[in-house]
């Protein structure tokens, strides 16, 4: 069984601290995605797990074994790099079989393992080509093939799709997910793209500035962000956030004087006079009769539509509310003219109140 455990893992580059004491438990066979803006320490964390960076503090263990001082070759992991790092002087077959040759496996075993990996990834036609003669997508596939021939305990991926064009990226995303279902290994996957994180992960680890901000399933992060950073990072379009102040009668007064009711869950946890951010997703605000149902708590807002983007099954509407640009969604769309005023309905139970100072979400307590 190969759990990967990080406890209080720290990375320092001289004075600069890149990773600030990360705790994380990854279960056997789990697909975990580390996501966050560029420079937040994702790659550094992954490379410490791989053994490519020294660990400045804390402990990393793989399968119950502390690996802090083991070189990469003794950790039984595979890694797919952003630039693929294929060996340019070897053909695809040699690239795939390299690790087994190093391990001095019998030739027959190597051949069958290489052929098996090639079959899984559809590389049979390319076996005698050098990496220079492959397209980006094919190189990507070879890199993945090289990772799976060894049947490692853990796969590590560092932004493996970011050098591909959009279409190929979507396609390879599906293949990676299929691969995980087929081989069932533990996977730790690094990306800065929240869509990749949402679609691939069993659990997402969202990082910022060397800290973990939130860990959870994609839906947990989407539906219950712990702060405004998570709320705006996860989900597209990002969550609408409006500045306001809590009033005596438990509403939020926006800066234009308009008041929005506070959803019942945090209603008792806010203090009158507290500065807050009122957050809701575009999906939870829509013109009356075009999405948000009447059930549960709702609030109606009159919005002047600045712009509309028809997407087919829905139309994305841009409006200005309390000097802030917000977006809302219209299902079963009808044509909308810019400048039109519409009454929109907000699903209150999906709204979030964040403390303006700490940016943390305010929940019922």
């Amino acid at each position, binding site marked *: 069984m190969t759990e990967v455990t990080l406890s209080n893992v720290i990375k320092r580059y001289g004075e600069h601290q890149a990773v600030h004491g990360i705790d994380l438990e990854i279960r056997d066979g789990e697909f975990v995605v580390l996501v966050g803006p560029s420079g937040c320490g994702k790659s550094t964390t992954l490379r410490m797990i791989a053994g490519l960076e020294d660990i400045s503090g804390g402990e990393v263990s793989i399968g119950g074994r502390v690996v802090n001082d083991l070189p990469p070759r003794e950790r039984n992991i595979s890694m797919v790099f952003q630039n693929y790092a294929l*060996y340019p002087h070897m053909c695809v077959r040699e690239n795939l079989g390299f690790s087994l040759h190093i391990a001095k496996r019998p030739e027959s075993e190597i051949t069958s393992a290489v052929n098996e990996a090639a079959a899984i990834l559809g590389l049979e036609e390319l076996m005698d080509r050098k990496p220079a003669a492959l397209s980006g997508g094919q190189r990507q596939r070879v890199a993945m093939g090289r990772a799976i021939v060894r049947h490692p305990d853990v796969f590590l991926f560092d932004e493996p799709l970011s050098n591909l064009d959009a279409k190929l990226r979507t396609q390879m995303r599906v293949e990676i997910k299929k691969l995980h279902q087929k081989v069932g290994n533990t996977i730790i996957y690094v990306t800065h793209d929240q869509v990749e994180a949402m679609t691939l992960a069993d659990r997402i680890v969202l990082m910022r500035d060397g800290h973990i901000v939130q860990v959870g399933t994609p839906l947990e992060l989407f539906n219950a962000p712990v702060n405004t950073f998570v709320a705006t990072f996860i989900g597209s379009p990002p969550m609408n956030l409006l500045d306001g102040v809590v009033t005596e009668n438990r509403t939020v007064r926006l800066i234009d004087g308009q008041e929005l009711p506070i959803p019942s869950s945090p209603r008792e946890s806010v203090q009158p006079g507290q500065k807050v951010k009122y957050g809701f997703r575009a999906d939870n605000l829509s013109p009356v009769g075009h999405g948000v149902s009447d059930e549960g708590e709702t609030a109606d807002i009159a919005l002047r539509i600045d712009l509309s983007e028809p997407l087919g099954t829905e139309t994305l509407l841009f409006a200005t509310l309390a000097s802030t640009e917000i977006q809302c969604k219209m299902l079963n769309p009808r044509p909308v003219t810019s400048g039109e005023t519409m009454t929109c309905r907000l699903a209150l139970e999906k709204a979030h109140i964040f403390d303006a100072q700490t940016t943390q979400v305010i929940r019922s307590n």
Partner: protein
Amino acid sequence: MDRNQAHRNRRRMLKGLHFVGLFLVMSIICIPGLWIILNSFRPTVEIMAKPPVWNPSFTLDHYRAMFGGAGQGGVPVFSYLWNSIVISVTSTGIAVLIGMSGGYAFARYKFSGKSGYFVGLMLFRAVPGVALSLPLFIVFAKVGIIDTHFGLILVYVAMNVPFTIWLTDGFFRQIPKELHEAAEIDGCTRWQAFWKVEFPVARSGVASAAIFAFLTSWNEFALASQLTRSVGSKTMPVGLLDFTAEFTINWGGMCALAVLMILPALILTFIVQKHLIAGLTFGGVKG
């Protein structure tokens, strides 16, 4: 139609000019070499003739004399050739090994004073070799390695290491570090990762460095003429001086030996030229 014609004429003219220019440059480079080869096959009278004789007669006299005994104006060609080969090959081998290690270290590792060392090495190249000949002569004489293969090998290694470091540093720098990281994850030690992945990828660069080092040692005259004196250690360039007597210079014999000296270098360069070109244009081709 007319415009097309004019355009084509211009293109043809440019091509012609290009050819003429190229021909001139190549002439300047090649004619001395050609002249040496021609002279080595001419009787001495024709070599000295004024105006020069353009349709030469052909003779192998100079070669016969050169390989002949000492009495007939011969020189110990095979000893000189052997000395040159031993000294050049050994010093190149050692210089490439040391230089490659150094280049790799500069490309891959961080250590304090790194840029200082690097600049220092390059400055070392700025010192003219001849300026060192007297101090070297004294030191070598005291240590007792004057007039030995070992002494000259030592000098050539010292001469070639900085340049080799500089050249291979550039090549290793262009190899992404992920390559050895991938190899290490695939089960290699750091040492294996170098020899199985990084070295083969950089081998055209190492080959270029080796050729440069070899040619430098093969052709070096100034220091060799000071530090060697007997048949047992003189190299070919120094051997050329055997053809100068007090009042005369045996130009024909000198040219014959020079041809013999150019040949191995030429052959070697042809053998590795594919690597050499690949090496020198490494940055342009992305693997």
